[in-house]
């Protein structure tokens, strides 16, 4: 192979090898959309923003809450939290970080169509700047998961001056308080960040970070192998073995907060009949489907929530593969002769693969399913409008809190576009989800969520498919890299050996 093709550092450093290597190149599958956290909510953007912005609260790699820009906080009443902010924090443009910035940021976030829902529980009128480094944030209703929401990258703290200065172009001129500041962006190709020397915390070891956009999975791995990049995100299942067996590379695996499911449009016959939904659950050999498609990456899903979401019920009993049982149930539902249906998927390779196998396996119970690969836009429109039958989709419980992973998906107020694309309604589920959302008592919440998960398993609006896992390939001289379950991994802890 050749080692000489990494882009030359744009700052003229000395030519001595390895020891002074101070550029880290990260390959990911898509270009960021915008570095204005309020303008987008996509993973590639968050992965970059994470290095530029900081949030009030952090979640560590075990999803535990930790101080971020807020040194400490306390709950003042059912609705209100008071945060003490860290002092001496500077924005990349040199301004000090104060409570006013927090207020500005949160109000702006509330206004955002893209991420408004993440801070939607906050009552904008009730944000109170106590002093420069103290702020009170109140929600309109009791909202238990507020802190985990404030750990979401979308709530990274912005600088008012910078936002106003760049106006519409802020997304290409981000200013945060994080360890790296934005340097340049070659659209479609790469984004370069450079170390922020006045960073308030531990200075990163690496001077410059480049996020390169390499859409093809295979190419990304090849680039990693040939040394073109140092870290490759989202190693494809097919490349796992290859990376693992390469002594120059280390494969990091960690379960994440993503899950895949096959949903039924429960508002539509025959899926309004729980027996049909269950029958199809029995008719599919989910275990082997997942193995065939994901090749051992992640795991067959045991429930709605992934294992590292708080209050996830991992003890639900699976349906198992039982064609006879499926036929029985169908017969009971009056569909012994089967029926014709469609399976929608977008053009995600794994989902298409799943669809193809599912289609194939359903033949055994006389269900004639047609796979329809629908473009993302039409897919969202169509599933929101309830035009679909069966569909394959995923969900990421980014906050790590079950509220985020259940409420939008199963609450009957969330039908359609808001997230509940199965159009599933169950009064008990609604009630439990409301309890979970409002209660401050973790035990009460946990109990409610456990029950919800059981009901959903039994009533089967979903076929649980896959619990996600993040795979990152890292060159062996890269140290200090650890994946975050939410996907936006910290780069500023990384160093070269």
């Amino acid at each position: 192979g050749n080692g000489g093709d990494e882009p030359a550092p744009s700052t003229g450093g000395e030519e001595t090898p390895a020891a002074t290597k101070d550029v880290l190149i990260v390959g990911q599958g898509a270009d960021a959309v915008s570095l204005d956290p309020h303008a987008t909510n996509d993973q590639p953007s968050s992965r970059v923003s994470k290095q530029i912005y900081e949030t009030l609260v952090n979640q560590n790699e075990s999803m535990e809450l930790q101080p971020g820009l807020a040194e400490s906080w306390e709950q003042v009443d059912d609705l209100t939290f008071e945060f003490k902010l860290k002092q001496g924090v500077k924005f990349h443009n040199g301004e000090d970080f104060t409570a006013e910035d927090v207020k500005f940021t949160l109000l702006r976030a509330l206004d955002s169509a893209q991420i408004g829902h993440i801070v939607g529980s906050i009552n904008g009128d009730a944000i109170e700047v106590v002093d420069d480094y103290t702020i009170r944030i109140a929600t309109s209703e009791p909202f238990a998961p507020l802190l985990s929401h404030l750990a979401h990258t979308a709530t990274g703290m912005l600088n008012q001056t910078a936002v106003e200065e760049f106006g519409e172009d802020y997304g290409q001129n981000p200013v945060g308080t994080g360890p790296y500041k934005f340097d340049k962006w070659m659209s479609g190709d790469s984004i370069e960040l450079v170390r922020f020397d006045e960073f308030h915390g531990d200075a990163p070891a690496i001077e410059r970070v480049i996020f390169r956009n390499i859409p093809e999975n295979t190419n990304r791995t090849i680039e990693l192998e040939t040394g073109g990049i140092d870290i490759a995100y989202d190693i494809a299942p097919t490349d796992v073995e290859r990376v693992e067996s390469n002594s120059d590379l280390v494969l990091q695996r960690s379960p994440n907060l993503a899950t895949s499911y096959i949903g039924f449009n429960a508002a539509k016959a025959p899926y309004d009949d729980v027996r049909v939904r269950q029958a199809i659950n029995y008719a599919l050999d989910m275990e082997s489907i997942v193995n065939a498609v994901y090749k051992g990456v992640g795991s067959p899903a045991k429930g709605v929530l992934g294992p590292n979401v708080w209050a996830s019920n991992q003890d639900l009993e699976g349906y198992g593969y039982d064609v006879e049982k499926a036929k029985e149930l169908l017969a009971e539902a009056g569909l012994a002769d089967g029926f014709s249906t469609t399976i929608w998927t977008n053009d995600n390779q794994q989902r298409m693969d799943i669809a193809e196998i599912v289609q194939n396996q359903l033949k055994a119970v006389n269900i004639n399913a047609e796979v329809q690969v629908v473009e993302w836009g039409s897919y969202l429109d169509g599933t929101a409008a309830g035009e679909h039958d069966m569909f394959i989709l995923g969900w990421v419980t980014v906050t790590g809190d079950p509220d985020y992973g259940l409420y939008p998906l199963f609450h009957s107020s969330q039908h359609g576009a808001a997230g509940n694309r199965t159009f599933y309604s169950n009064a008990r589920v609604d009630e439990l989800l409301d309890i979970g959302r409002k209660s401050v008592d973790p035990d009460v919440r946990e109990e409610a969520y456990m029950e919800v998960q059981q009901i959903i398993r039994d009533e089967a609006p979903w076929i649980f498919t896959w619990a996600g896992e993040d795979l990152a390939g890292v060159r062996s001289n890269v140290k200090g890299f650890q994946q975050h379950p939410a996907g936006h991994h910290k780069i500023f802890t990384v160093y070269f050996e």
Partner: protein
Amino acid sequence: MTTDSKKVDIQKENVAENAKKRSQWLEVWRRLRQNKSAMVGLGIIIVLILSALLADIVAPFGIDDQNLMNALQTPNSNHWFGTDNFGRDIFSRVVHGSRISLQVGFIAVGIAMITGGILGAIAGYYGGKLDNFIMRMMDILLAIPSILLAISIVAALGPGLSNVMIAVGISSIPSYSRIVRASVLTLKDQEFVEAARAVGANDVRIIGRHIIPNSMAPIIVQATLGVAGAILSAAGLSFIGLGIQPPTPEWGAMLSSGRQFIRDYPHMTAFPGLAIMITIFGLNLLGDGLRDALDPRLKN
């Protein structure tokens, strides 16, 4: 005395002697038959058409016979081209794929040829403002790269075999209209057209009996090459995930789903790729041969 520089084609007496009906097309066929590479091309196309027609007999397995246990076998005596990630027999899928590809190719070209041909014939024959208008429309279509046009059309209509055919068809309308127009333009001033007019033939007869049959040559050549182009475009669309629905064994789609395995199981991409290549190769050979056979000027 001055003669026109055109050589008087001296005919073979013996040909005229046995006065069997020997149309221009037979003549073309005779010339084509002498062209070895065109015959190779024709052979390839015939094999393809046969395999498309007889796919169910030729293919040892069905297109969707999954066997997850048998996934990703390299070529062996049982599975000549190996199996894919679902354990399906790639050879069978490639064979069935010829059906899809030829269908897409022929229908897309049919759409383009008919619409383009009619537009071109009208523009060329009547000329003037109509011509101008039609040709400006074609310029506009031409200014948009055909693959982008096709992608937009598929986006607008939604993916699926028939939409792909429509998209690829529409995006190649301009080339046909141009060719037909050009040949109509040269033909309409030909003396035999004038002769027809002199004996009182009307426009319909002139276009139908004199102009269209004589403009077939370039259209046929373009169509042969166009089928190749259409197959490629459709495969390209499938490759970027805008084409045909699974589990349809479209070659481009097979290639696309194989690319994630390209390093360990290159046979998944190699065979559909080769299938495309051989098909296009055959069509091109045939198209070239037809061009030579139809244009006696290029003879030798």
